[in-house]
């Protein structure tokens, strides 16, 4: 049911666990800094203590931190005076939420019916191969999180992939690399270019040879 869980089991420990630096976790670990806790408190402060606000609050937290940090969920449960398990239940039921940090860029591959019949599964496979991922999830360098979505409502342009807020229409396997390169770190894409050039040189040499 839950996409974006990254296949990892979340353990609620007091100390938290170390993870590479990523957007939204300035401290570089999943232990939150004072500033981040203050930010979290100000998000929580915008809502009153009704249980009905639970999903809306979680959405705001997710939008700010790109995941739902454990410390904030604990504070939220206290604020709404509900058990932490209730918060956890809602946080793991809905697709929008993630309990582990997501990458800098979110690649949403549409697997709606129209995209499916026009070849989306193969585009997805190509994206995963290109990012060296076995299944949808986050890359090791936390630059990309690949998610599958069921229809973004752009069926006329199938197959589509949405990266962050930009929708890329009429994708083919051959176009995948070009789209992803637009979002790669500068350093990385230079390496890419360099290796591509090298390969090109090899081709040329082979031809001459």
């Amino acid at each position, binding site marked *: *049911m839950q996409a974006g869980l990254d296949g990892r089991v979340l353990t609620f420990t007091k100390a938290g666990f170390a993870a590479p630096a990523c957007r939204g976790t300035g401290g570089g670990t999943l232990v939150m800094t004072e500033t981040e806790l203050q930010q979290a408190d100000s998000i929580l402060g915008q809502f009153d203590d*009704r*249980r*009905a*606000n*639970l*999903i*809306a609050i*979680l*959405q705001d937290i997710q939008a700010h931190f790109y995941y739902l940090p454990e410390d904030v969920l604990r504070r939220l449960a206290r604020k709404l005076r509900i058990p932490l398990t209730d918060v956890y*239940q*809602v946080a793991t*039921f*809905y*697709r*929008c*939420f993630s309990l582990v940090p997501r990458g800098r860029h979110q690649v949403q591959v549409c*697997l*709606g*019916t*129209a*995209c*499916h*019949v*026009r*070849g989306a599964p*193969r585009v997805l*496979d*190509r994206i995963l*191969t290109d990012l060296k991922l076995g299944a949808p999830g986050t890359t090791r360098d936390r630059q990309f999180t690949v998610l599958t*979505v*069921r*229809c*973004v*409502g*752009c*069926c*006329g*342009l*199938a197959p*589509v992939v949405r990266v962050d*807020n*930009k*929708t*890329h*229409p009429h994708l*083919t*396997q*051959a176009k995948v690399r070009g789209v992803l390169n637009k979002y790669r770190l500068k350093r990385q894409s230079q390496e890419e270019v360099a290796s591509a050039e090298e390969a090109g040189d090899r*081709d040329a040499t*082979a*031809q001459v040879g």
Partner: protein
Amino acid sequence: MPRLKSVEELESLRAELRAARDPKRPCLTVCAGSGCTAAGAHDVLAGLRRALAKHGLQDAIDVKSTGCHGFCERGPLMIVWPEGTFYNQVTANDAAAIVASVSNGHVPVEKLLYRDPVSGKRVIREEEVPFYARQQRVLFGNNGRIDPKDIKDYLHVGGYAALARVLSTMSPEQIVDAVTRSGLRGRGGAGFPTGLKWKLCRENPAPRYLICNGDEGDPGAFMDRSLLEGNPHSVAEGMIIGAFALGVQEAYVYVRAEYPLACEHLRAAIDQAEEYGLLGDDILGTGMKLRIHLVKGAGAFVCGEETALIASLEGRVGEPHPRPPYPAQKGLWGRPTVINNVKTWASVPVIINWGPDWYAGIGTEKSKGTMVFSLVGKINNTGLVEVPMGITLREMIYDIGGGIPGGKALKAIQIGGPSGGCIPADLIDLPIDYERLTEAGSMMGSGGMVVMDETTCMVDIARYFMEFLEDESCGQCFPCRKGTQRMRQILTRICAGNGTEDDLLLLEDLGWLMKQASLCALGQTAANPVLTTLRYFRDEYLAHIRERRCPAKVCRELIFYEIEPTLCDGCHACVRVCAGDAILGEKEAIHTIDRAKCTRCGACLEVCQPRAVRAGTGELVCRN
């Protein structure tokens, strides 16, 4: 803007707005719906503004962004008013030519006009395009005319006139009666008579609530998105009328999180309506109170089911509960609640404005009015289509949709999303209404219509839907949770060529059981795609099982790729895209595919210009 204090003030404002606008003043409207935006509509808008500024025409010619026109395939779309010249596939580079043509006596820019693929002639106006000619755009008609973020545009085309009429001349009972007489049925899929639902809710004590269901989860359907994006005030107006009829003071709109633009436009519409005194306390000076709250979904297909949606609004997980009690008796916070689809609410002002008898005159005996379909998949003209009920599938596919691309043969039409079924090509003369579709094993659903051609594998499609439903089942009741899982496993097995004929009987048994025993509509209808494909395309299942052959050449385990040496020109394009380094051969030399390494991703087939790469299926697979 001071709040409007009476119906008369609203009408005088409208008259003022109409007088202030010169109908002859040129206006360039560009579709900025999700589809056209993805295709570059905002670049076009910027280009037009730059071109106008360059010629000093920014005060003489207006530029406006509008909602979705429905013809997404040909986007970005734009119309030049007042002539109504329709341009398609516009780019920012065309801006100068368009501005020049408008300022020089309006000679249409030939290359941007739609070209009829049959006659080859250029078409000037939108309504002459065959895609639009057969449609009756009752709900979507204003989408291409108004700026969805400006209430004045909506007022200009007669918006909130139905509300004014209701508040000044009608009683709540009369409204319910009018909706009942119009024959309007719920547009969310089940087709429950709207008037009856309202009447049942009114019989229960206040406080009552009202919900607009915009959780359009069906893959392949995007009409609710387009309506909320393109004409949010029409939905709000329908809800205000409904609230008056039902004595409601709090209303909710639940919109899918995947639709950011729809949320933005609806938010703006609600704020503006409050500013103008059309929402909030003392609406148009009548003492009526209503607040509309916008709630964003968090991504769960099952929340489209009404009881699950209500649970989600209450901040809980979206698990449905058994009915009765129906929401009209016991809904949000345990109070009587009317929950209707986006299109149902938008139909209400139309019924009030044009009268219930006019509305009941459209459509068939039991299905009245117009229905919006999203025509997508293997079809030439993809997009949103609004047609009277009772139109045949043939008219939809060939007259409006322009047929199947590449001269391929139509195989099936999948209607109604994951809960619907696949209708085979030989039932193409079936008229579309609620009853006929159900008889054919499908259902109206929210109106997603996915066209499939000979290159679509029906077993793969059944597997696809089952995977979707397994993923989206909330897991509460056993028949749905386990049934979808087992069916997906069996279908995956058949797709891999490892199925047996007993599997087909097992699928039918499971399907029957799920229909009988599941708690909500998701589980009860989950087997439809499997049962209809088994009913109409059994031979395709048997080909997978008996001959280990996928006739549509889709199922990876059963296909192979090969290169026809006489056609290969050694261009190396396939070598560059090959995911598994499986293509051998130097540049300029004939390539061959190493089947042991081939991952059957099909990328080589996509890029091969001389069409030398071919897919095969059948006995050769065993030799791999």
